[in-house]
């Protein structure tokens, strides 16, 4: 399992008369290499769930293991590093940084990781090629169409080889045709790159194109079904750690070339790289 949620609760206005439970104890596992959709009506808690999955937010209660690492109670900068290296975000409103080129946007996660100029450039170009944006690399976001922006955003989400790609209504701001094209890209990167993708949508048609549909209502999982697409998808050879126990954060943040550090965690937290 790349993601394991146990009894996740999210409340707002805690202790006040208007206390609000948005997520009411969610338990959920997502396998590495799967393409999962989360559907539900507006206000059902989809985005709240995604913020927790994406390490942007901490749950009020419950346990969240990402790649076997307990994420729920980490500090701000530790969460930043998790997001940087384990998670790729695709937003409904694209959220490209204005005034810098598509290429520079795709380079950003690599920049924050501390990658060198050349490495950043090569990786970003490779990713833009993957999403078919190689001839728009120097364009700024305001010179791109919605579909093009979302393709750049998808390329950016893949920059640091994340464990999961989280897409919150990625076609919500696009027309049907463009939305389908973006959906095709997701399907392709799932198939070809064996990415784990969590797609949040309220569009049933899009959800049917994924392997598994999780339905939430009022902060609770009310449905979890396989679509049968999965048989067509080969199981990725690079499966996530099976160990249910939480590995230390330093393991997660150590470079992939030194897996030994996962067995013997360093005495202090040294993952911060500027």
């Amino acid at each position, binding site marked *: 399992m790349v993601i394991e949620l146990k009894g996740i609760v999210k409340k707002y206005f805690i202790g006040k008369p208007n206390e609000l439970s948005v997520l009411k104890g969610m338990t959920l596992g997502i396998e590495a290499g799967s393409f999962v959709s989360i559907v539900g009506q507006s206000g059902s808690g989809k985005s709240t769930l995604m913020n927790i999955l994406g390490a942007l937010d901490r749950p009020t209660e419950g346990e969240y293991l990402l790649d076997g690492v307990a994420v729920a109670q980490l500090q701000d900068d530790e969460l930043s590093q998790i997001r940087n290296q384990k998670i790729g975000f695709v937003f409904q409103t694209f959220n490209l940084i204005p005034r*810098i080129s598509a290429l520079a946007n795709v380079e950003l996660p690599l920049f924050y990781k501390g990658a060198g100029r050349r490495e950043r450039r090569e990786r970003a170009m490779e990713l833009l090629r993957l999403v078919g944006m190689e001839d728009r690399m120097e364009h700024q976001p305001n010179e791109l169409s919605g579909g093009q922006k979302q393709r750049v955003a998808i390329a950016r989400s893949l920059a640091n080889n994340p464990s999961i790609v989280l897409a919150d209504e990625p076609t919500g701001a696009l027309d049907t045709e463009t939305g389908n094209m973006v959906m095709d890209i997701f399907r392709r990167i799932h198939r070809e790159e064996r990415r784990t993708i969590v797609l949040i949508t309220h569009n049933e048609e899009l959800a049917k194109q994924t392997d598994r549909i999780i339905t939430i209502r009022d902060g609770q999982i009310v449905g979890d079904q396989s679509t049968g697409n999965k048989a067509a998808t080969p199981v990725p050879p690079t499966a996530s750690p099976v160990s249910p126990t939480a590995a230390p954060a330093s393991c997660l943040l150590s470079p992939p070339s030194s897996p030994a550090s996962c067995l013997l965690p360093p005495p202090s937290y040294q993952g911060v790289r500027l």
Partner: protein
Amino acid sequence: MILENIRLALLTMKANKTRAFLTMLGIIIGIMSIITIVVIGDALTDSVSGNFDALGKNNITISVRERGTSGSAMMANFPGRRSQNAKTPETDDLLTDQMIADMRGAFGEDVAGVSMSYSGGEAQARDGARYANVAVSGVNADYQGANNITMLAGSFIAQRDLDSKGNVAVVSDKFVKNMFPGGGSPIGKEVKVYRSDRIEIYTIIGEYESSDAFAGTASERDETTAFYIPLTTAKQDVLEKNFASITVIGAEDGDVQEITERLERFFANYYLGNKDWQVNVSNLSSILDTVTSILGVIQLAFALIGGISLLVGGIGVMNIMVVSVTERTREIGTRKALGALNGQIQLQFVTEAVIITAIGGVLGTLLGVSLGAIAAKVLGAPLSVSPLTILGSVGFSAAIGVGFGLYPANKAAKLDPIEALRYE
């Protein structure tokens, strides 16, 4: 990382040129006024002390002045500046040769010389169509040292010229240019000097270099230069043999201030019984001190104005940065989602503020140095800009960027990523 941030800051600035410039304006004006005043102040101080050195820092002026007036010895040196109702001293009220001789005896080595002069009025030297305007001045030998007169040829008025009361003269280079345009040494040549009531013939024994420090507005052709003749020659036809003012030259290695005070006591003795007149003893260094301290106060006042302007400019930078952070809330949220650490966000915004203030500092320095150079030119003072001033001011403006950029940068760094992403 820093370089990337600088590139990004420049990109942001480019996208918002007008705003960036307006933000810089306070810094530009602040740095400009500070640099200008520092440059002007330094130039003035240099030129004032330069002029005073040329006049002689060991000179002590002793002049007779009316009791109860504040007219200084300096004033006495400028005819026509005396107040209208001023009385004229009688012969007995003036400084006598005897007093001077007594003083020399009493002070010995502490006094290197006594410079005396007597103004013989304006005159004109003529030779056919050639002419030169002169101010005839009877002087003694010590006058040269007291007034830093540099000889170009021949020699200055010497004791034997004073003894012989000869019709000899020391003239300026400008005089020579006007009267002997053909070149050749003027030494030994005779010139006719036309005065209001008579014509006199003088033999030139020396040529001195005229200084430009006090050059008037007249063209070089008509400029009046000093025409030095022996004091004794000048006073031959004058009844008044005493002096209203003399200049004592303190010993080179002596304490001018101390000698000044002793001279004051010495001459005060002669005037104890004089109801109307007294002596005033002063030296240039005390005047120089006063002038430089006044300059210092003016400089400080302007620097203060510049400092306030910088403070206002810094607050302006902070203000704009806060606006910028608010405007770019979504961008900040996105950067955080992509994994930016709080410190990286902070650095980005501090860099932006520093870039703005540093560019403002550079522009302000350039403007300040230019204005200072123009002012120095107008004032006729030498321009000197120390690299320390330039480095200091650019560094200081960058520091303002750090100081005033820190608050908005921290604000940006502390934003909650979810709220920032949701910001409309």
